């Protein structure tokens, strides 16, 4: 190296050049969203790095699963057996209720709900960026994932797909600052909007009038308005309601029901076709073609 006789443009010129590039990128990515398409390619390009980075964690997971003692396995087995019994009993009841519901819906001439297609995905990396809450999953365009697809875990809504790569994609969580999700209170059907706060265990609700019937412990479920998320999945539980009359609105905070910081497996949903309450009898008679459950 020769620091006295420099080659190429000076450091200042380089800095100005790259800062200009950054400004352009920020403008086109944030304001114009013109990188949605290219992001997919970039995501596919860097996914080897993400797979490498998640190897130690997967090795530990594998070790924990394989180096279990006999006693642990027996305990777990018993636990699972008793759970299965409970679930089977519930499934039987559900079957009866489903039939009854279908009959009633048919009487009302409103469309019968169909089973949506589902797919299990595993998290391969979690973002270390403190300003956004995103995870990367091991499913991509090859599996038919699409942008804006709802993602749930066993206890509730987790988020939606943000960018789709070929073999991996990125999911933005409901706790991200930029995310909002339409919900209703399960108890009385009051509609609210749940906004992410950037904190992993908190959602806020703006513009809630003081007179709204909402109290601690209320379960908030998706309302299905907006068409992004299917209706009826649990989102959060109300944790604090402060009705300070000097403020224009009540301050409501809730905690996501899904363990957002302990996710491992998630379920991707394919939403049902949008249906209207005024649909005709012919719509109801269409054959059930696309209700095959994915792996």
């Amino acid at each position, binding site marked *: 190296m020769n620091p006295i006789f420099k080659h190429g443009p000076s450091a200042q010129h380089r800095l100005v050049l*790259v800062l200009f590039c950054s400004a352009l990128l*920020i403008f086109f*990515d944030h304001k114009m969203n013109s990188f949605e398409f290219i992001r997919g390619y970039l995501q596919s390009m*860097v996914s080897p*790095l993400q797979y490498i980075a998640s190897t130690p964690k997967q090795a530990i997971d594998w070790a924990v699963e394989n180096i279990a003692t006999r006693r642990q396995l027996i305990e777990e087995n018993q636990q699972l057996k008793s759970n299965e019994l409970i679930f089977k009993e519930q499934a039987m009841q559900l079957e009866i209720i489903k039939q009854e519901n279908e009959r009633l819906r048919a009487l009302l001439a409103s469309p019968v709900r169909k089973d949506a297609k589902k797919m299990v995905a595993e998290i391969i990396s979690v973002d270390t960026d403190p300003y956004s809450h995103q995870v990367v999953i091991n499913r991509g365009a090859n599996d038919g994932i699409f942008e804006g697809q709802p993602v749930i875990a066993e206890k509730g809504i987790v988020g939606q797909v*943000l960018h789709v790569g070929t073999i991996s994609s990125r999911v933005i969580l409901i706790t991200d600052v930029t995310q909002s999700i339409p919900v209703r209170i399960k108890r009385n059907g009051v509609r609210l909007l749940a906004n992410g706060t950037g904190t992993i265990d908190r959602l806020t609700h703006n513009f809630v009038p003081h007179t709204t019937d909402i109290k601690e412990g209320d379960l908030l479920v998706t309302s299905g308005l907006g068409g992004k998320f299917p209706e009826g999945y649990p989102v959060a539980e109300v944790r604090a309601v402060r009705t300070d009359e000097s403020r224009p609105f009540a301050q409501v905070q809730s905690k996501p029901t899904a363990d957002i910081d302990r996710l491992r497996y998630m379920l991707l949903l394919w939403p049902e076709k949008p249906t209207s309450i005024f649909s005709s009898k012919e719509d109801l008679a269409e054959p059930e073609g696309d209700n095959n459950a994915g792996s």
Partner: protein
Amino acid sequence: MLAHNGIMIIFTLLVALVATIMPLPLSVDAFRPDWVLVVLLYWSLALPSRVNVITAWFMGFLLDVLLGSILGIHAAAMALCVYIVVGNFQKIRNFSLWQQALIVGVVSALYHLLVFWSQRLLTDVVFLPSYLYPVLTTIVLWPWAFLLLRKIRRHFSIK
């Protein structure tokens, strides 16, 4: 870039990228040091003619893609930090290891604040003191990273 074992520079930078996105428990995660920044600063101090602002910008860009942040934010912050260090590399080289560590800490704090400020301009993020925890671990990491990378540089005679 590839002459004189330059592939090792790229390799160390890739290892730093992997260390940056490796999943860790949430409590440890807040203290994750800035691996990429430390490695970049070492190479820009040792070989300022090979690793400079443009390299830093590309690494920042890769970080943006990996972290899913708005493209260009980490790239700009990284480039600016490396620019400052490259501008003063002859001074910083003569400092002792611990003095260097403190300077790297200041640069790392600047990096985090630059990222925060640009995020603040674009979205409504709120400042939490925990955003600056990585500065502490970066200061602790610097001497070890310095010694290891110097060993690598001498062993592979990267010029």
